[in-house]
């Protein structure tokens, strides 16, 4: 009886020492999973997930404070990738945070713009060029479609437009037909 207790206690001490040593010797600085999650997110920086940007959302997911289905611009593709990365089941997009829409960009109506620079301060990726009392304009290639500039504009001169489709960005659609016997017909 006594030998059992001593043996198990010794083993516990040995393993404890090994684990403690490994925790210090092999400690990883920072949290690489946050980087991986962040690289999956679409970087729209729109805040629809209730976090102020994609990086904070990534950190929240890593800590377990947020679910993986809160990103509307990412849509199903991002949810599936996050589910794959974290080893959880994918789930449908949480509609409370918004719908997944086609990619859009914004443009400023230059006749109305008064040069107040509020939109420049709002843009999370600095896609609006301009200065005080001078014309503001949106660099379409850099615009992520987050729409954060629209509510701050005092004269409502910013409008949304869909990204123009060209031959090189056109995609073949998924075959869908009323003759598909696999689809529900109700």
């Amino acid at each position, binding site marked *: 009886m006594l030998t059992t207790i001593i043996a198990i206690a010794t083993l516990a001490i040995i393993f404890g020492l090994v684990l403690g040593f490994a925790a210090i010797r092999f400690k990883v600085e920072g949290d690489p999973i946050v980087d991986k999650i962040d690289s999956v997110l679409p970087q729209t920086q729109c805040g629809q997930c209730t976090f102020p940007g994609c990086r904070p959302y990534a950190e929240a997911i890593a800590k377990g404070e947020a679910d993986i289905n809160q990103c509307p611009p990412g849509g199903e593709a991002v949810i599936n990738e996050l589910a794959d990365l974290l080893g959880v089941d994918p789930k449908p997009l949480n509609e409370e945070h918004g719908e997944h829409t086609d990619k859009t960009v914004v443009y400023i109506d230059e006749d109305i713009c008064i040069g107040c620079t509020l939109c420049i301060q709002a843009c999370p990726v600095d896609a609006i060029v301009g200065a005080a009392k001078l014309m503001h304009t949106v660099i379409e290639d850099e615009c992520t479609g987050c729409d954060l500039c629209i509510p701050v504009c005092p004269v409502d001169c910013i409008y949304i437009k869909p990204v123009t489709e060209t031959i090189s960005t*056109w995609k073949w659609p998924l075959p869908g037909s009323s003759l598909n016997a696999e689809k529900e017909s109700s």
Partner: protein
Amino acid sequence: MMSMRLWKIFGGLKLPGFKSMSMSQATQPAPLPKTLTLPLKQHIGIDAEPVVKVGDTVLKGQMIATSGNYVSAPVHAPSSGKVTAIKKHRIPHPSGIETDCIIIETDGEERWVECKEHSNYRQLDAKTLRDIIREAGIVGLGGAGFPSFIKLDAGSSNMIDTLILNGAECEPYITCDAMLMQEQSRKVIDGLNIMRHALQAKHCIIAVEDNKRAAHTMLVNALHDHEAEYIDVIQVPTLYPAGGEKQLIKTLTGKEVPSNGLPINIGVVCHNVATAAATATAVLEGKPLISRYVTITGEGVDHPCNLDVLFGTPFSELINLCGRNSHAEQFIMGGPMMGFEISNDDVPVIKTSNCILVKSENPTPDYIMPCIRCGQCAEVCPAQLLPQQLYWYSRAKNFDKTQDYNLFDCIECGCCSYVCPSHIPLVQYFRFAKTEIWTQEQEKEKSDIARQRHEFRQFRMERKKAENEERKRQKRELLKKVNKEKDNSEDAKKAAIEAAMARVKARREAQHTAQENTDNLTDEQKHLIAEIDSRRKKAKDKS
């Protein structure tokens, strides 16, 4: 000509040919249309850039759009006339999207631009020859439209083993290459010689399917004696898709092009026979690529035939010419296996338009049933893929797995869809998967850039805040220092005040030394001035 050993390819289908219907008469040039619409992108690569303006008069063969980037090709005016517009117009593409086109109103005179011939091409080095071919706007006329000069670069080894001219034309209905080989066999061989010189190829093969006997005979007869030593005109078994580049190379040389690789990796280059003929015209006659043979065929035209068509000619004119009838409901550019449907026949003929197929709509399309895993698709796939698995994963949008099963090796030949008993549109699933993967890659790049911009913006805000803090701190320090000095020395203060007053005095004196309007003064005025001056002097001495 010696008989060569041929290898078998995996899979493939025997399809009904429908070729004799369009080969009954010799190829005629199509009549000159009133309007020519030239898209700026008729090739794989970047759009060409226009070098003419609206209102310019152009000559036949004049360059109207130039190629800036490496993978691009210039566009030339197919006939003389006036540029009436540079605007968006429909082009033959499955999406129906409009792109920029140069629209020329022809004047009927067909005045040629000055052409520079290079009959001495053997003295030119490979790079000069490639530049001539590039400037002539020559792209792969077999259907892909890849700028040909890039495929005439032998690379660092400066020579290749085998140059193959693809005259197989395995798709049903299409006969333009067959007619070209029959009617212009010498030109094809001249083109082959030019390409051989550019690539320094050791061995040359012209491959013809064995259902094109006339073409084979004409080519063999057109060979000069010494040419027969290095050129073989070989008949390959008629099978779809024997004309696929990788499949043809395997049939003729037994070597398989590595998946994700190019034929040049195994020392082989493959060009279409029409490309070779166009090269001969460009180098020997100095004329750029402005027309091609097009097959207009199908049950929707009464007189199916081949025509030599200028680029920019509308499809509708050609179909009317060949006798459009009541069956003309569906228009396909290309063949029935790899072509695409165009909804409206008001599109122009472009460099890659090899065939216009006009047919009636299928009366009772069949239901698309679930996949029964019969495996027939895998038995016919010439790329030895598993279309069934690619279908399951493409449908599930599991794009990583589709790439595990080599999705990008699929040549989209359509054999799998043809045999599927459930009538599943397999090729469309694969095309969907490919474009989705490309879009995802583009979006990933964009989102990486957006993240960098966002991080830089945050860095910039931090930096601004830090700079503000720094400035405030420095000001505070300065104020503190000034206050300290104020308390410590009264003398210093006095000295400062005196120095300030001295400065003011000096400034005032400098203002008053210059007296103006002192000419023509009366005596009274002079006396007044003297009095004022003495009074001022007294005041100054007092202070």
